[in-house]
Each structure stands twice: as C-alpha cells, then as structure tokens.
C-alpha cells in the first residue's frame, strides 16, 4: 500500500534516499524519463517533447526528524532537530536511527524523582537524550555514528472515520497523490518532481523549477490542520474532511488569484469539495518555485494534516482522494486547452 510504504520510509531532510528509491521504483513504469538532480530531487517526465502547457507538480520527499550530534559517556545520544520540531512532543517516544534503522527511545526523568517546580516546565531539547541500550560511549559508537539521522518510529494505520495516522504525511501524502496522478494517461508535457530538503528551508524545489522551466506549477502538501478541541476558528487553518485546501497567502507566497480561481472552478464543476488554507504562517515549495527565473505561475493544494511535525500525524482519506480527483481534473482541463490566464 502506497501511503503506508511512503510514510514508513526513512527520509529526514538531506537523507531522502529510501523515499527516493521507493518512488523511483513506483514511477519508472509510468514515465518517459526519470532523473535526479544535484541535490537529490527525483524528476519524472511524461511526454517531454509534446506540445502544450508544461505543467510541474511538486511534493517534497523529506520529513522532519532529528540528527545525532553527540554521544555521552553513559552511551546516551544527544540530538538536534532537522526541521521544525517542538521538543514537547519528543518525550517518551520511540525513534529509529541511522542506516540500520536502530531503535532508540527518548526517555524522561521519572515523575517520582522530579522537584515540584520541574513538573510545570516543559522538557527542553538539551535535556532529552536517545537511549539505544548502550552503557558507554564506546558501546554506542559501535552501534551508531555521529551525524546519523533519526525519525519517529510510527506505523501507518487507518482508524476512526476514514482517518489514517502515520509519521511524515507532511509530505508523503503529497508524494502519494503525485504517483496516482502519474497513472493517469495524459498528452501534456507533464513533470512530477519529488523534492528534497523542504523542511530545512525550501532548498530542493528552486533548482527543480529552474531545470524544468514549467509554464504552470502546482505544489501538493500536507498542511497545518488544527480543527480540534477548543481551537479558535482562526487557528484551525483547515478542517479535516472538507476537501483539499487552496493557499491564499503563507509565509513565503501570495498565491496567484487567477490560478486559484481556475482550480476552484474545476472543483466546483466536478463537485469536489475544497477549502481555503486559513492561516498566513508556514510555507511550502511554492515559495521558491514561484520566484524561479522570471517567475512561475504557481498554486498550492494541500491535504489537511492534524499534528503535523509530530510522531502521529492524522489525515482524512477523503481529503487525500479528493485531492487526487481535483488535480486529475485540473490536468484534463489544461489538456483541453484551459489555462488559468485566459
């Protein structure tokens, strides 16, 4: 199962190899040309020499994770985040480390041993250590290396009302959407890019845009969703099950209005639910793609993801399927001569 395989694959920013390998196997039968660039992004082309609008779809392969930066005398590992991680969600979680995917756990001082004032303060990153079962620095050095990347040890599972939880829906759900789009026959010169290093500063997508020089670009993301508990409506960003979310403005991009209206009109005609992404913070690969060279017409379409950047992220499978339906309809519309600027 694609979502399971992709979300369980190991790929923090800069260490996307396993994800790239998995995607390459998936897309080779679906593409005319498959290549990688200098940073490691995977570029998949269909009908590269055909006439028509050159369309780029992009989703990032990398996930937020950690990196081992030191080994203590007692064999415990020091780490720092790769991408935006709130240390409060790391406490008492299992992780997997390095090439061997070795298990470790992030422990916490027993509540019995804490002073009352300690209990009201969150654990800070530097208080947290990974325990791999080594008793000494030497033992640990035989099992892991400084610089080893680390990911959450979460399995993909479906639950509740058409929900799924996994690590790394941000943005493996986008990667899965793009694989599904590649399965659809098209006559357009279509490029699908699986980019690297989005979580550490949108690094991979810019070179991809420069190289592929699309007329139109669409970024597919797992985006912030906090439609839970007592969250105020302006904090929710998106609502689960309400359809793919169209970006208006985020930390890096003011989305092109006409392109958004074009996607909305396709959704409405196909009776596919959609919503706006209703926060202005955060960013995605659109932030660099739309500024490539003389500027590229770019839109961002996202799947609402609860507990994004945490070990157990949650999506609604209807949102996933509706995103595939919507983007598939957008491709067909462009194929028939439709264009956002017309």
């Amino acid at each position: 199962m694609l979502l399971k395989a992709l979300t369980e694959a190991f790929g923090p920013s800069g260490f996307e190899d396993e994800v790239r390998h998995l995607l390459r196997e998936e897309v080779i039968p679906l593409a005319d040309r498959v290549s990688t660039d200098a940073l490691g992004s995977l570029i998949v082309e269909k009908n590269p020499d055909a006439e028509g609008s050159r369309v780029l779809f992009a989703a990032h392969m990398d996930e937020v994770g950690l990196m081992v930066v030191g080994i203590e005398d007692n064999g415990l590992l020091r780490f720092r985040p790769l991408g935006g991680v709130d240390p409060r969600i790391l406490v008492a979680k299992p992780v997997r480390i390095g090439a061997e995917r070795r298990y470790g756990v992030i422990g916490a001082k027993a509540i019995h041993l804490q002073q009352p004032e300690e209990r009201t303060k969150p654990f800070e990153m530097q208080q947290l250590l990974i325990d791999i079962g080594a008793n000494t620095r030497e033992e640990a050095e035989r099992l892991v290396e400084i610089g080893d990347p680390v990911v959450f040890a979460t399995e993909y599972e479906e639950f509740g009302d058409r929900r799924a939880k996994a690590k790394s829906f941000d943005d493996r759900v986008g990667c899965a959407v793009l694989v599904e789009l590649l399965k659809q026959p098209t006559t357009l010169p279509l490029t699908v890019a699986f980019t690297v290093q989005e979580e550490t500063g949108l690094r991979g997508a810019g070179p991809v845009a420069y190289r592929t020089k699309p007329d139109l670009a669409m970024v597919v993301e797992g985006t912030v969703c906090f439609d839970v508990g007592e969250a105020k409506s302006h904090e929710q960003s998106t609502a689960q099950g309400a359809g793919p979310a169209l970006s208006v403005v985020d930390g890096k991009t003011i989305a092109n209005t006409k392109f958004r209206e074009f996607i909305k009109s396709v959704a409405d005609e196909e009776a596919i639910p959609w919503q706006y992404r209703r926060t202005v913070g955060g960013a995605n690969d659109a932030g660099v793609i739309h500024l490539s060279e003389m500027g590229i017409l770019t839109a961002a379409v996202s799947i609402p993801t609860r507990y994004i950047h945490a070990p157990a992220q949650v999506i609604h499978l209807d949102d996933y399927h509706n995103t595939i339906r919507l983007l598939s309809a957008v491709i067909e519309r462009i194929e028939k001569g439709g264009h956002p600027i017309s």
Partner: protein
Amino acid sequence: MLYDQALLRRLTEVTGGSGDEGGARQVLIEVAQSLADEISVDHLGSVTMRKNGEGLGRHPRVMLSAHLDEITLMVKKIDSGGFLRLAQVGGFDPRTLPGQEVTVFGREPLLGVIASKPPHLSTPEERKHSQPLDELYVDLGLAEDRVRALVRVGDRLTVRRNTIDLAGGRMSGKAMDNRASVTALVICLEELCRLRFGADVYAVASAQEEIGAIGAMTAAFRIKPDLAIAIDVCHGEMPGVEKDRVVPLGKGPVVTLGPRIHPSLYRRLLDTAKRHRLPYQLGLSQGATGTDADTLQVVAMGIPTALVSIPLRYMHTSVETIVFSDVQNAGLLLAHLIADLNSEFVEGLTCY
C-alpha cells in the same frame, strides 16, 4: 529458560490498569497453568499461583507479591466535537503524553491520538508552557455522535506501545512497571519446577498497587504467610538524577535494606545471591519503599517482609526501560531463596 523476553513483551503489550487488570490477568493465568498447583483470583482481582512444597508437617508459607496493574488514563468527559478529556489512574507525568497514540477501551478498542498543537501555530509563550493533564485531549477521528455511541465516561485508555528491543538486552515499553516483576514471578515458579523445596509458595500478582498497594493487603490477609517478598521496579540510573537515588541497569536485581524490611530476610537474600553466584545490588530505603512491601509488613500480626527490585529507567513513561537479565536473575534469586529455606530460619524470623 522457557519464559523469556517473549513473555515480558506479551505481558507489557496487553492492558491492565488498577482495578481493571483483566487483560494482563488473562495472559498470566494462561502462562502459569502448567507451573502452579492451583491458581485463584480474589475479590480485588489479585492472582495467586500456589506451588506446594514437599514433605510432611507444616510447610512454611512464603508469599511473593508483584503487582499486576499499570498506570492508565480514564475518560473524564466527552467534549463537543467528540474529543476526550482525561483523568489518571496512577501517577502520569502529563509532559510525556502529547503526541502519543492511545487505545481507548470503549465498546470496542479504539485508536486515538493525544492532540498536540503544531509548531506552526503555537506561540513562543505556549512552547514554554507544559500542558497539565486537564489541557490534554484525545482525538479518535470520529464524529461526536459516534464517539458518544462507543465511549463512556469512565472508560480506560492506555498509551499504545509495542515493546522494543534495544541493544544490550534492554527492552523498552509501557507497563514494564511492573510486568517485569510479574515475569520474574513466572521465572521463579519455573525454576522451582526444577528444584526441591519444602515451603508452600503463594506467588501473587497483586491488583491496585499503583493507587496504594491495595491488592497485596487483602491477598496477604487471605494467605497469612510466614514471610513475604515484594517484587517491584526501582529507579535505574539516568542523567540528571543523583547517583545515590538510582542503580545501574543490568547489574542484577536490587535487594533493599531499611526499616520496612526484615533484617534477617534481607541478609538471607544477600547470602542466597552470593551462594548461587547471582548478581545483586544494594538498595537503601529510609522509610516508605513505595511498593507492596510497605503494605505487607503490617498485615494482620505483621509479616517479615523483604523487597527485591528490578532497575528501570524512565519510570511511569511509555518507554520504561529494563535489562532482561535483571528480570531473570530476580526470578532465580527468589527460587533459590525458597529452595534454601528451612523451618528453623522461618521460625526465627519473629525472634529478635
């Protein structure tokens, strides 16, 4: 050894909260069938596995007590939107809960996630705040009417955790406190199948320790043993904790000395460990041990009581970590103590 890591894994992955120990009890009873002469469950839910000694006349009665229950959470309220507010049964550190997967034992077991606000939305002030339990809630991914149909206030939930093998024989998971000791009980019974002994052994997996060592009290009153040994976990060494409050993992079970521990029984445990070349460590207590031993000592006319502990890191989190050799050595120490007992020693326990 028949009962190994696989048993501990099985016992830790099932659920058994205080007063609701059924999941763990079922596994234990199944496993202990072939090892005990009689298995009984008392009114509070403690399991007693009796193994009879050889010989004529009155047999000394030895009680072993390892609590079966684990800390769990309880549904306190179903909020609008179907989110579950939480109470605790046993002492959680709420800081270990955000982002955890849980199983809610409603009309059917339900997977849920304890919500955490993404860093994209939280303010710097919020990130300096540790959320107390009453700010946390569970997302079941279900509409409110479905939640209300499936979950009731009072339903239990546990953190969902597969037990993980780390390097060096270390195992990490939930409920190592105290299924590690329950596993040691089983190892002891299994070893007793190979040894000759004259005492009647009552190996008790006691209920409701985490809310005040309740089950051990009623079980001891029923058994009225000549001596009792509590088996529990103790704090393993970790950074940020003074060395004198913790012991290393993997260096053997801990035998405790202190006012609540019978001095001759304590010495007997040390002598047994030395005679059988079993590793052990010394634990010091100046009063409450925070285990069944505290209760056992004062049941009925008072019981000579000792404490054997398994070192454990990250207690009351869902990544409680132990070294399996400590569990095995605790089981063997108990078995040899029992096999080496004689009536003279047992009668001497009340003579000061």
